């Protein structure tokens, strides 16, 4: 059946008609069979104008409306509502922009502006002719959220969501939550003890009735989409029942295996059965089956023998667990830069070169009165190790190193007054609240800040002292000096495990390797994948307050979606013709939203074709332009429509 199109050309109270000859436009449009009526009006968008349209739709059984007026970005919404009022799909209305892009831009050129207005209106008619009455799609949403990563970001997000009544699954691959923050000595600029402020928060997690904590657990697979994420996790056994363990330490005492302690960055040792950290949550010993003498077959059972509460059970195995969530927050954090990549500084080779996280642990221990090492009398910090350094592929600033080095220097200085402490920096960035003041204070306390990049560190093989060479770029003097210890302020790198999660979810990375947010300014915690959010350093280097803020932001964005109970999707989306699709996958590859899946399904005779997820697709049409077969098109913006618009030319 031929469409019945009504066309309205607006004068816009002279805005249009002072340049464009509106009468002539209406006259030039005639002669096309399915254009049932053409009218002009002083203000089509006015009450009167809209009533006119409503009335015409009813009386003339119009099923397409073309409005030749202002920009659709200006009044498009108004007319879409009018269509709905008339009981029509808002997507069978087209606008020709003869104001912003015609009358306002072509003053005094009535003839040409009029002819342009005619063409633009004809193009809108050509498009409207092929419009289909699309409808919005609605997806019911539940209140389940998966949080990947139990660092401070994951903890904050879990608590926010749990408190708000959402069902949280917090997955952490390590045996305890707490992440990198749990390893820190104190935090800048306030110097409050990291463990002291973190441990209550950590303890809140298992106590929150809405949070299901899964430590020693890795995400194996995620499929599906918003509202329907099917998550498969692998739960690794710890062999110790946390509910029974009393942390009496007897098991560790008898354990014959000693290995480097990760929590202390290998500066101390632990046993094969151990407490992951003094503030571990769950607060329980765990058995590390990789360093244990052997469980299959059992080589030693000393720990089990001494356990008075019978908390140890060797007969447990990794198991998979599946659950479904509606949204996901990725908070997989960062890794520190591996300073071995910067071989000129000798980390891992020279005895007295430490990275900053090692320094954190050294200070944490000495702070407790149990010093591990003597760092000597002259200590240097080298900044920007693995940051702002194209040689190692990190162009970005890691944002926290200036301040943590200042903090470590201050703490060390206060513990060992009278020592010489140098910080060799590129630029000193003290941009946060209280940062500049902290920097000033450090200077006043005698920490020497030298603006200059250190070229190399050379160890005296006899004395193990370290020779540093740098240029003080402020005084233009070459500094060559011997130090007892050197601390490398290593930068932040994307966590090694993040890529796996990113691939599962179809998240893209920024050039720096951190996960990419949907919009750097306006959607900093959203991703392009609907229902997936980022929190913390997984998105880029940041300090604790920013991480916490972002975690709360991510929670709030997740709540924004789930609280409504449903998700509404625009109908202007891609559509795949199964008959034409050859399954090459180029569409899925170029889709930024992971909205296209290549499926070989039984109802398609096992043939692999692209399938568009109508809730994830944003209708950008990149897939359609990429498809060589012409199998992908965009509803309401089809190739056929565009080709007919071109034909008007």
């Amino acid at each position, binding site marked *: 059946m031929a469409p019945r199109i009504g066309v309205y050309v607006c004068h816009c109270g002279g805005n249009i008609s002072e340049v464009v000859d509106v009468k002539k436009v209406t006259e030039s449009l005639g002669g096309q069979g399915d254009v049932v009526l053409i009218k002009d009006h002083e203000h089509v968008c006015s009450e009167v104008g809209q009533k006119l349209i409503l009335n015409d739709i009813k009386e003339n059984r119009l099923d397409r409306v073309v409005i030749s007026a202002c920009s659709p970005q200006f009044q498009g919404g108004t007319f879409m509502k009018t269509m709905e009022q008339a009981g029509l799909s808002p997507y069978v209305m087209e606008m020709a922009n003869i104001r912003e892009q015609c009358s306002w831009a072509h003053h005094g050129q009535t003839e040409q502006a009029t002819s342009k207005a005619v063409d633009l209106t004809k193009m809108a008619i050509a498009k409207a002719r092929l419009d289909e009455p699309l409808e919005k799609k609605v997806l019911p949403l539940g209140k389940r959220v998966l949080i990947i990563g139990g660092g401070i970001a994951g903890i904050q997000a879990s608590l926010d969501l749990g408190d708000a009544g959402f069902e949280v699954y917090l997955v952490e691959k390590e045996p305890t939550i707490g992440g990198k923050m749990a390893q820190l000595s104190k935090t800048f600029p306030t110097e409050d003890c990291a463990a002291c402020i973190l441990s209550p928060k950590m303890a809140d997690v298992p106590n929150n009735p809405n949070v299901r904590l899964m430590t020693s657990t890795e995400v194996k697979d995620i499929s599906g989409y918003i509202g329907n994420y099917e998550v498969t996790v692998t739960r690794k056994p710890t062999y110790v029942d946390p509910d029974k363990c009393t942390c009496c330490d007897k098991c560790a005492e008898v354990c014959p295996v000693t290995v480097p302690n990760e929590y202390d960055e290998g500066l101390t040792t632990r046993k094969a059965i151990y407490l992951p950290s003094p503030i571990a949550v769950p607060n329980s010993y765990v058995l590390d089956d990789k360093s244990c003498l052997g469980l299959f077959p059992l080589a030693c059972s000393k720990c089990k023998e001494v356990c008075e509460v019978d908390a140890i059970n060797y007969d447990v195995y990794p198991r998979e667990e599946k659950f479904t969530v509606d949204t996901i927050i990725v908070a997989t954090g960062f890794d520190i830069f591996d300073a071995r990549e910067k071989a000129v500084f000798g980390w891992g080779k020279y005895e007295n070169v430490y990275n900053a996280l090692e320094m954190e642990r050294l200070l944490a221990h000495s702070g407790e009165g149990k010093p591990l090492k003597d760092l000597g009398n002259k200590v240097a910090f080298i900044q920007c190790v693995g940051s702002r350094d194209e040689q190692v592929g990190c162009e970005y600033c890691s944002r926290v190193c200036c301040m943590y080095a200042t903090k470590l220097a201050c703490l060390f200085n206060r513990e060992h007054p009278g020592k010489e402490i140098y910080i060799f920096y590129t630029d000193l960035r003290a941009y946060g609240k209280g940062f500049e003041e902290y920097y000033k204070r450090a200077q006043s306390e005698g920490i020497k800040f030298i603006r200059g990049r250190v070229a190399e560190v050379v160890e005296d093989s006899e004395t193990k002292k370290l020779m540093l060479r740098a240029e003080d770029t402020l005084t233009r003097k070459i500094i060559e000096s011997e130090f007892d210890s050197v601390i490398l302020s290593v930068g932040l790198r994307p966590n090694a495990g993040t890529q796996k999660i990113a691939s599962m979810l179809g998240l893209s990375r920024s050039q720096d390797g951190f996960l990419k947010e949907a919009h750097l300014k306006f959607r900093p915690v959203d991703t392009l994948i609907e229902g997936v959010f980022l929190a913390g350093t997984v998105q880029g280097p940041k300090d604790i307050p920013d991480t916490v803020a972002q975690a709360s932001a991510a929670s709030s964005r997740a709540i924004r979606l789930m609280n409504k109970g449903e998700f509404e999707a625009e109908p202007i989306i891609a559509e795949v013709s199964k008959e*034409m*699709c*050859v399954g090459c*996958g*180029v569409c899925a*590859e170029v889709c930024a939203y992971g909205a296209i899946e290549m499926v070989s399904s039984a109802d398609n005779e096992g043939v692999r074709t692209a399938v568009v997820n109508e809730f994830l697709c944003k209708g950008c049409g990149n897939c359609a332009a990429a498809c060589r077969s*012409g199998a992908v098109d965009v509803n309401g913006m089809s190739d*056929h429509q565009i080709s007919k618009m071109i034909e008007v030319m």
Partner: protein
Amino acid sequence: MDLQAQVRQAARKLLDDKQVDVVIGYEAADEPLRTTPCFIRDSQEVDRLVWNPFCEHNLAGYLQGRQDKAAVVAKGCDSRAIVVLINESQVQRDNITVIGVPCGGIVERKKIYRHLQGADIREAVLEGDVITVKGPGFSAELKVEDFLAECCKFCSHRNPVLFDIKIGEDVPEVDSKEQYHEVARLEGSSSEERWEFFKKELSKCVRCYACREACPLCYCKQCFTDQSLPAWVGKTDDISDTMAFHIMRAYHTTGRCVDCGNCERACPNDVQIRLLTKKIEKDVKELFGSEAGLEIGEKTSMMVYKENDPQDFIK
């Protein structure tokens, strides 16, 4: 053992061991200087298989959409096409066995006919690198290397990049520096000259679609030329439509074309369509630094982007 014997031996073993259902290779054609694709299912028939510089077809196209287990004889370019087909999920790696044969270049039959001014060649015998051709009242000895197809002359991948069975030793790769000389020559001429050249060249096209069908990477279920909503390209032999067809067909090979020359070889009217695909191949290399069909798992150049891709042409 010569390469042909090795191909036959490999085929025999694959069929006898029931590793494959069919071996796709070449057999002699009735016409001199030609071979024709053949499908061997019985090991008794492997002696039909031949290997010589007349094995001009890219057999990769026969793999697309197969349900059975197939072995295929593949030269360098054929193997690259197979890689692209695998990467585009048109061929399942597990279902195919690639019999890789290093290739010294393929003879372009029409060059010989041109050289002999259209002589009526009734017989051709290849011995070593010399082809002896005979016809009513004449005979001539020709060297293979003098009649290599254009795409073979500067081929940068004569040895298969993917194979399960390798026949013979790798041949030395040739200097491919000059491979774009024809494109470069055209680029050096004026817009007007290029237009006249391509208009004339493409007006020879009769829209038989042999180029498209011969291309192992043209595998759409329905080509844009046959689509009607919208009908991007008219069906008549109007030169504008013919040019539009060739522009878009070439464009669709962007970052995928392996320059096997099958399209141009298939053309009954000798339209130099490789000049289009070769231009794109050159641009892809220049602009995006990529080359098609070298590695399983690689993404073709239109599937990816770099944030710093060249954009000096954009205002």
